[in-house]
């Protein structure tokens, strides 16, 4: 029976090295500025969490096998080797203390995209058998049950019934030819059922045709978080198959950061072909509806609101202005954090850290950076658009006894929809 070995790990590291990786490692001057962008270092003060240090195994393989000098050093017996013990030591650095937020990639003076290389390093770690237990479990559940939390359609079916009862609207399921296929995340289904109700209302209000798929409802991708292409590709294939079955032209990624990265940016490359449909984050879709006048809102929230940009959505996907357009529609007193958008700070839970139980302490330490940011602008409530971020914010704020509720942006929009202009809106749209 096959097993994960160091050799397979080294081969996977090797296979990941490309021109950008080589350019990045060639350029690092050990200035340490990346540490100043990493919440895990800043909030623990432990220099081993310096981002570039986390990449040492990948760098060693690059140096030994991809450079002239490394080859010469190898012949002289001077080249350091990557060992199983080293990878075991680095497991904490590559998983527990990195949310792949990509902030270091934005500040590195020589332009190294460190998050890109963390993602690559995890490929090697999985093949070498050095992934954290929490992420292994999530991956196994995702592949075997379709959801990293083991959630099944029947649970969702119950939710759908509730939504239909409370709104009096139909939640379309398996509707071939709808414009949008709506994907969900298990966390939303369990923790934030308001989301499904909100989009049901908004799409009804805007006259959008959409559907859920019983074949696949889960957009999150444990394979991306653990860092394995095989699992990630399997999970993406399920989404693609569902979309192709229902012949939709657009797929909507839910309020979840890494799910968007998985199906929007990595998906086509994992399956090795372009999609026959386009992928949008729900925030992008809502902003598009707003821009074309298909969302009519009334009333505004009058308390002081601030917003947390999910890393995967803002810095790593360029969705930054859209959520601000939407919040301006429904909030009177919105204040941005000092560093937001592409320079926002991670909540600390991304990149699989939240699925990695043993990283709990580090995760809460990293949150202190976000907490400080929140304290700076002192909002009464926080708005965000990622279920993982939202959970982390809620847990973190509670941990520090800060009475600041966190709400999803989509729900907030749904709460302000104009009640009866539906016929008119449809009329406008048709006109």
């Amino acid at each position, binding site marked *: 029976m096959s097993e994960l070995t160091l050799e397979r790990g080294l081969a996977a590291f090797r296979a990941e090295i490309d021109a950008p990786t080589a350019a990045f490692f060639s350029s690092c001057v050990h200035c340490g500025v990346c540490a100043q962008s990493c919440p895990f270092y800043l909030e623990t003060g432990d220099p081993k969490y310096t981002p570039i240090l986390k990449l040492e195994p990948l760098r060693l393989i690059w140096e030994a096998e991809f*450079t*002239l*000098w490394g080859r010469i050093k190898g012949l002289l017996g001077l080249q350091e080797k990557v060992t199983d013990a080293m990878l075991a030591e680095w497991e904490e650095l590559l998983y527990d203390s990195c949310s792949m937020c990509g902030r270091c990639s934005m500040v590195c*003076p020589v332009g190294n995209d460190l998050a890109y290389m963390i993602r690559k390093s995890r490929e090697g770690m999985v093949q070498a058998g050095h992934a954290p237990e929490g992420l292994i479990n999530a991956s196994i559940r995702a592949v075997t049950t379709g959801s990293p939390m083991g959630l099944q359609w029947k649970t969702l079916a119950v939710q759908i019934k509730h939504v239909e009862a409370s709104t009096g609207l139909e939640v379309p399921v398996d509707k071939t030819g709808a414009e949008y296929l709506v994907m969900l995340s298990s966390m939303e289904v369990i923790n934030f059922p308001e989301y499904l109700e909100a989009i049901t209302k908004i799409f009804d209000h805007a006259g959008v045709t959409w559907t859920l798929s019983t074949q696949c409802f889960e957009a999150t991708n444990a394979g991306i978080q653990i860092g394995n292409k095989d699992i990630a590709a399997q999970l993406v294939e399920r989404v693609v198959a569902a979309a192709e079955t229902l012949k939709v032209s657009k797929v909507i990624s839910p309020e979840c950061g890494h799910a968007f990265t998985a199906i*929007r940016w990595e998906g086509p490359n994992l399956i090795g072909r*372009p999609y026959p449909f386009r992928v949008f984050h729900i925030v992008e879709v809502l902003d598009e509806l707003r821009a074309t006048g298909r969302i009519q809102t009334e009333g505004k929230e009058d308390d002081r609101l601030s917003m947390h940009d999910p890393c995967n959505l803002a810095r790593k996907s360029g969705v930054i202005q859209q959520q601000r357009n939407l919040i301006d529609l429904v909030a009177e007193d919105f204040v941005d954090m000092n560093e937001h958008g592409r320079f926002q700070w991670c909540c600390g839970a991304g990149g699989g850290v939240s699925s990695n139980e043993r990283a709990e302490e580090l995760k809460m330490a990293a949150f202190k950076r976000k907490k400080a940011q929140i304290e700076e602008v002192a909002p009464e409530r926080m708005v965000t658009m990622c279920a993982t971020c939202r959970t982390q914010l809620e847990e973190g704020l509670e941990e520090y006894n800060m009475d600041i509720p966190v709400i999803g942006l989509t729900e907030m929009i749904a709460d302000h929809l104009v009640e009866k202009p539906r016929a008119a809106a449809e009329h406008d749209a048709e006109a």
Partner: protein
Amino acid sequence: MSGAMGFLLWVKGPMFNIALAIFAIGLIARLVEIFLLGRAPNYAEPRAGEWGPGLRTMLSRTIADPGTFKRAPFNVVVGWVWHIGFLIALLLFIPHIELFKGVLGLYWPGLPNPVVDLVTAVTLITLLATLVHRLWHPVKRRISTTEDYLVWTIVFMVVLTGYLAYHRLVEPYPLALGMHILSAELMLIMLPFTKLTHIFTAFIARWYNGAAFGRKGVQS
């Protein structure tokens, strides 16, 4: 022939050729190593092109974002000062321009010697500051390798010997000049095989970074 003049003629002649050849071999090898690796095709629908954002990042990374400046002002300011000082001394000192003219055939106007002299003194001080920072700052101390100290030493030696030679503080002068040229040659030899490569590859790295983010609609 031996002695200081013999040493100077050796570093100006055979040694310079050796250093230049190793530099050219190493640098081109490194660049070929990088570019021949290529990138996997990207099937994800792009939000924007790669070239524009890539080129912009090549320049924009020179200036730190305000947050980083606030958190690492020493890195940013001292890094800037010594890099600019080094470049001014390297590119705008008239004897150096004559060297470029002699080897490459390219030349440009220079700065008056006292200006370069002042800049060199500032560069030396800031270089010392970077060493102190490297030894003192926990992150820098943790990630520093022998190579970092070796590279620091050679860069410092290049500037220091240049300063000593200009002020003729070492006698005889051919020895002072020879030591300066030799230091520069050692730096040239080390360049393609150490982090000094960033002089060239940082711009490639920045392009890839800018292109990757730019493709996703973010100016990095």
